């Protein structure tokens, strides 16, 4: 198998290198890729959408249909992970493990539940004592990560960034909480049902904005129809429409990253994490 793989890789590589003889030189300003559609986008983006970041305006306005389906792909990947891995146990495990917080004594409670009080905490078989330094530093860092992620989403018009990057950072902040403390702590903060509903709500915001533009009289995802709803001129309406769909994308991506992490790191059982 290895020799077959090596022969295939070398043969394909040789064919591709032979094909690069026809390519334009690297970095050529007159290569055909830069001559047809993209000068229109570069020259017209300020006067049509008032957004200086050309990548954001092309992603969310000129090619907004692709981005809507990309958000749908992200959502369906989260659903696929959930359907593959999630198991709901029919019966309770035979014994639960509780640990007295002050002394560290572990109690196995068979067929009964201890009443919830502050003295005992529930642990799992793969429990390790959380390190105080990591726990405290992550608790101090997570609000700043989330604040920066919200800044990246909101400032995507003028600086590199936008919905995807901010959404991934928001998801990463909750994953940091799950890693530094416990998966149970993260699931208590942001429950599983809320997470799945947020994921669907992100896609709904995106497609709903497009449908709203259709209902208000223009084409699907033509944001200048939003002048009937927002008090501004059509150019600023396109800029605000881009912002609304970026929020939708950010919410969907955040919820999917958390969902996939929770399913993969606990093999679907949601009891122990990493």
């Amino acid at each position, binding site marked *: 198998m290895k020799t077959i793989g090596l022969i295939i890789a070398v043969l394909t590589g040789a064919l591709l290198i032979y094909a690069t003889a026809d390519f334009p030189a690297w*970095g050529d300003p007159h290569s055909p890729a830069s001559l047809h559609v993209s000068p229109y986008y570069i020259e017209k983006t300020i006067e049509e959408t008032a957004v200086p*970041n050309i*990548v*954001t305006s092309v992603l969310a306005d000129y090619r907004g249909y692709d981005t809507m389906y990309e958000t749908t792909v992200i959502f369906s990947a989260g659903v696929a992970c959930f359907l593959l891995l999630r198991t709901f146990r029919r019966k309770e495990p035979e014994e639960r493990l509780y640990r007295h917080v002050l002394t560290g004594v572990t109690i196995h409670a068979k067929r009964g539940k201890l009443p919830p009080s502050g003295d005992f905490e529930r642990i799992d078989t793969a429990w390790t004592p959380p390190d105080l330094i990591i726990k405290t530093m992550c608790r101090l860092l997570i609000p700043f990560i989330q604040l920066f992620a919200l800044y990246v989403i909101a400032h995507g018009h003028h600086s*590199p*960034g*936008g919905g*995807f*990057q901010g959404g*991934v*950072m928001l*998801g*990463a902040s909750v*994953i940091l909480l799950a*890693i530094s403390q416990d998966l149970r702590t993260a699931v208590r903060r942001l429950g599983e049902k809320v997470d799945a509903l947020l994921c669907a709500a992100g896609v709904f915001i995106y497609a709903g904005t497009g449908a709203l533009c259709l209902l208000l009289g223009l084409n699907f995802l033509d944001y200048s129809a939003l002048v009937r709803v927002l008090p501004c001129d059509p150019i600023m309406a396109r800029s605000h429409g881009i912002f609304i769909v970026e929020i939708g994308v950010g919410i969907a991506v955040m919820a999917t*990253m958390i969902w*996939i*992490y929770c399913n*993969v*790191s606990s*093999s679907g059982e949601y009891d122990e994490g*990493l």
Partner: protein
Amino acid sequence: MVWPLDLAILTLVVIVGIGAITVKDLLGAAILFGAYSFMMCLLWSIMGAVDVAFTEASVGAGVSTVFFVAAVFRTSRRTKD
């Protein structure tokens, strides 16, 4: 475009890529994959593609590496090949 910097980072990317598929410890392969993603992010920043570099830094070097480490934790860590 500074060509010595470009060439140096490209050489490092190829070496890290070959390393990520050759090591026998799967956790090492996951971490080397994170390093490979980060080198790619540097390459795109040099080329001027800042949005793509930002996305690859957060997605590739962040969340992808965490998914790999979580999956290696749930399965086995050694491999024979």
